């Protein structure tokens, strides 16, 4: 009984330490620089308690749930030895986690408004909805492709920087040719694939894969999936803007 309590209190302390900088910065600027009292201090304290408890539970869950799951799946695929199945899994994981992402839904709706104002599509509810939906599909396809390509890179041991730098060069070139109204949307869409639950799972998957394949190193080959998932939506959305 003593062990878990000790572990939990250590985690709680860790969460407090993680949040201390934000609290210090906000308190300092509020009290010393702006010289204002805290508005409704009570609800701030309740909120802080929630944040600390939440972060503690999250990290606990990472270590007992998401990390072991990602590793177990990576090992199972490595043992099965079917590259096709693994790549299909990578694609589905990328596509599935992105299509329902709330941040993406918000960006897509906003992009549809911008596009209709710019005259790129017909200004009607139906065409806006269709545009936003297509955009979500495009970004989800992009992330699915990114994870597939990233997994393939881990299997083959390709150097990551060549692919990433080539990708950014492509983004730069496409930016010059894409319609202006899509550029901001494209750049923003790079960040939506990295949700709080996807990142740990995908990272554990990559590191687990690299660790269970002979000749691959967990450190040098296991990371990088997130980098692909950030880059590819920009390319896909710019392409979408050029086609439409």
């Amino acid at each position, binding site marked *: 009984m003593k062990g878990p309590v000790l572990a939990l209190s250590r985690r709680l302390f860790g969460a407090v330490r993680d949040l201390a900088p934000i609290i210090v910065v906000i308190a300092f600027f509020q009290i010393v620089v702006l010289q204002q009292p805290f508005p409704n201090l009570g609800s701030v304290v309740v*909120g802080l308690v929630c944040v600390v408890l*939440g972060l503690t539970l999250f990290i606990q869950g990472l270590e007992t749930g998401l990390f072991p799951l990602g590793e177990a799946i990576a090992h199972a695929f490595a043992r099965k030895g079917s590259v096709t199945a693994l790549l299909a899994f990578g694609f589905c994981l990328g596509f599935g986690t992105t299509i329902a992402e709330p941040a993406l839904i918000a960006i897509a709706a906003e992009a549809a408004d911008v596009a209709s104002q710019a005259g790129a599509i017909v200004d009607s509810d139906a065409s806006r909805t269709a545009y936003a939906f297509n955009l979500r599909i495009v970004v989800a396809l992009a992330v699915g492709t990114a994870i597939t390509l990233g997994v393939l890179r881990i299997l083959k041991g390709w150097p990551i920087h060549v692919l990433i730098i080539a990708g950014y060069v492509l983004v730069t070139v496409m930016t010059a040719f894409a319609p202006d109204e899509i550029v901001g949307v494209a750049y923003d869409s790079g960040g939506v694939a990295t949700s709080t639950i996807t990142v740990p799972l995908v990272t554990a998957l990559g590191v687990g894969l690299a660790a269970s394949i002979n000749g691959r190193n967990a450190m040098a080959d296991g990371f990088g999936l997130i980098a692909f998932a950030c880059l590819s939506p920009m390319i896909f959305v710019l392409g979408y803007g050029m086609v439409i």
Partner: protein
Amino acid sequence: MDFLLDFVGTAFGTAVDVLPIAVILVVFQVAVLRRRIPNLGRILSGFVAVLLGLTLFLIGLEQALFPIGETMARQLAAPEAAGAAATPSGETQVDWRDYLLVYAFAAAIGFATTIAEPPLIAVALKAEEASGGAIGSWGLRIAVAVGVAVGVSLGAFRIVTGTPLAWYIIAAYVVVIVLTFRSSRSIIPLAYDSGGVTTSTVTVPVVAALGLGLAANVPGRNPLIDGFGLIAFASVFPIMSVLGYSMATSWLNRSRQARRSSVPLPK
């Protein structure tokens, strides 16, 4: 009562996030892998902990930190706070030195929100494990946070001066490419990943509010054109700082080893 409604709403949103992942996992498990996952009960309880934790975390941020952080960002960006009042001639003159407090706030809040960013914590824990402790999880998080601090601060400077975003980002990528070719191969993927994980739950709302507040308050800036881009800064600079951090640690290790081997062995 409000709190309960909030909780249920946020929990539902988080659950919807997780649903596709769960479906894909189950389908592949049943149809392709056909192998029992070890410790399934423990993993499921971990999933529940992640869901609950994230829900509480988001509600707490919404209630405690975001309102103050966002108001603060707007107030600091306001001309009175920055001292950029109209000049006697009646013309508003923007002098970047009037906004020193804003750059300081941008750096401090960028650093602090990054330290608390849950995806970064996850990646840092994994990196410590995968590198066998050579990359410390705190070392990595501090390196990323310093990168975000510098990036957001420079981004605020860009909004105040109204210089084009593209120059900064292209210059930053050139530095990243140069550093990449001088770094050891094993750190590069992690460095590239750390650019993407910083721009998440905690950092984005506060930093975006700072950008929009600045663009709305600095004379001659348009929130629609100048307000964005801080996030782009916050995702490029960590790549640099992580590559730099790894160079520094490997240099330190080498010089420590050199010192140790130069000490004469006791007879």
